[in-house]
């Protein structure tokens, strides 16, 4: 067993996968905590879906993949913030705007794919991820994205927490609600663009929501919950990568399966603590 593991880490593609996966888990844990707190899972899912046209467009136009991802994800984040705007959060208008942008972006991705026939075999990889093809260069870029997102969140984290918990009070205290909400959507877009590289467009969501939701069941203090979410995310990614290496199961499926296991355990733990 030990031997098999050392062999696993001797491959450079596995090293890259572990580094990239760890960065994605950190992004997912920290940003995901805010997503769960703000009840923005739908926006999170929609932005992660945008990773599909982002990646497909990058291939079509011959751009670096991360550039395509980051551009479309942040633009869509701004679009959601702009089209769904109301003075205080109106869930109906917001949800309808998110859905509209999501569907249009997906359709755009399909257009890109059908314009670029060679991408054919890549569709499933873009949608569902692969850990085989990650390069060292991508790892560095992903780590850079992670640092940028963490830096942005340290700046806006406190007021964002305030307005996430009580928007009306935050507005009354002159917290720039609109600007911060928009800023968070942009941060979310960036984080998702980075994570999508490894998990694929559809499953970014698993790393974003599952560890944070599990952590939120157990801990109430924001800082602790973020750390726990990150830890659970790391565990999820590492176990999934190892399991995927030794079995033939797709990484995307394993990430959701392990994530669900943690979530269910956390819910049980939360119940036990309450009773």
């Amino acid at each position: 067993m030990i031997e098999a593991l050392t062999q696993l880490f001797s491959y450079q593609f596995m090293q890259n996968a572990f580094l990239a996966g760890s960065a994605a888990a950190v992004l997912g844990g920290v940003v995901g905590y805010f997503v769960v707190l703000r009840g923005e899972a739908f926006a999170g899912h929609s932005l992660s879906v945008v990773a599909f046209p982002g990646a497909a467009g990058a291939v079509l136009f011959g751009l670096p993949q991360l550039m395509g991802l980051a551009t479309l994800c942040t633009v869509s984040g701004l679009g959601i913030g702009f089209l769904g705007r109301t003075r205080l959060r109106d869930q109906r208008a917001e949800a309808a705007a998110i859905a509209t942008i999501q569907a249009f972006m997906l359709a755009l991705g399909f257009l890109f794919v059908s314009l670029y026939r060679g991408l054919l075999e890549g569709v499933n990889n873009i949608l569902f991820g692969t850990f085989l093809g990650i390069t060292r260069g991508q790892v560095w870029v992903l780590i850079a994205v992670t640092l940028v997102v963490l830096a942005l969140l340290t700046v806006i984290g406190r007021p964002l927490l305030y307005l996430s918990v009580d928007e009306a009070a935050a507005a009354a205290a002159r917290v720039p609600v609109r600007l911060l909400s928009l800023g968070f959507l942009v941060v979310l877009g960036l984080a998702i663009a980075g994570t999508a590289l490894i998990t694929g467009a559809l499953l970014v969501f698993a790393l974003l929501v599952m560890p944070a939701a599990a952590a939120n069941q157990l801990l109430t203090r924001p800082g602790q919950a973020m750390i726990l979410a990150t830890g659970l995310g790391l565990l999820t990614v590492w176990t999934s990568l190892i399991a995927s290496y030794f079995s033939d199961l797709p990484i995307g499926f394993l990430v959701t399966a392990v994530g669900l296991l943690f979530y269910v355990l956390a819910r049980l733990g939360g119940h036990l603590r309450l009773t």
Partner: protein
Amino acid sequence: MSWPDLAGTCASPDMDFPSGLFAHEFMRNALMASTGIALAAGLAGYFLVLRTQVFAADALSHVAFTGGVAALALGVNELVGLVVTTMLAALILNSLAVGSRAGDIEIGVLFALILGLGVLFVSIYVSGHATSNSTGGVGVLFGSVFGISATQARIAILVCAGALVGLLGMARPLLVASVDASAAAAQGVRVGLLGGVFLVIVAVVASEAVQVTGALLILGLMATPAAIANNLTARPYAGMAVSAVTALLGTWGGLVLSYAVPTLPPSFAIMAVLFTLYLLAFAFRSLTAAHAWSRQGLRFEG
């Protein structure tokens, strides 16, 4: 279903436009099926937005994906697989206290799991068909409206007519329950049951819509027309009508556009038309709001 058929290349460029539009059977079938599906989806979508269940519908449409590839992987009839899995998911979603903030996370977790299972089925299907067809799931994901047979079109019309009748029949209590659940309950409306029946109807419509737009774009066909309607009118019955008619116009427009410009896949063309209409409706609302503001401002000054 192989890849090139999906990309709308069935309509080869040498076909004369627009006279050839109705001459081809695949086009007639596509228009027929999508008429029923668009009307039902537009109407259902109006209620989804009103009930803040768009995220639940999103999850439901991805269940359609998982159900579709599961049917492919297990070799079951696709429509049966779709209807069974989406209905099951509708019942689970209905029990998850949808619409509240607490529901958001539970739907999210369920959602991620659904996608993970979808991936698993895709990989089972792909390894079961080692002959290179790694795109088996793509038809389910993005639809194949120009591949609909006459029988499928007839089934779509019948099913969607049923869904329309059901939705219109429960429109009034559903409206009341959506706007004020406790008031509806006080009037003797069984809110939980009503919500369950509604989501089951959405599930059936979604299963049918997979053929037209594919699993990933069902949400667009449902929510975009409703978003347009909400930008244009605040009255519920007018909104329902606008939503259904917009879905129909978007679908027809998209099909014709895709026929005229074969490089555009039909599901993209449909969404492009709907998205344009949405932007127009949004601009319209913003302009009228600004107009009302300036008028109000004048009144204050005078």
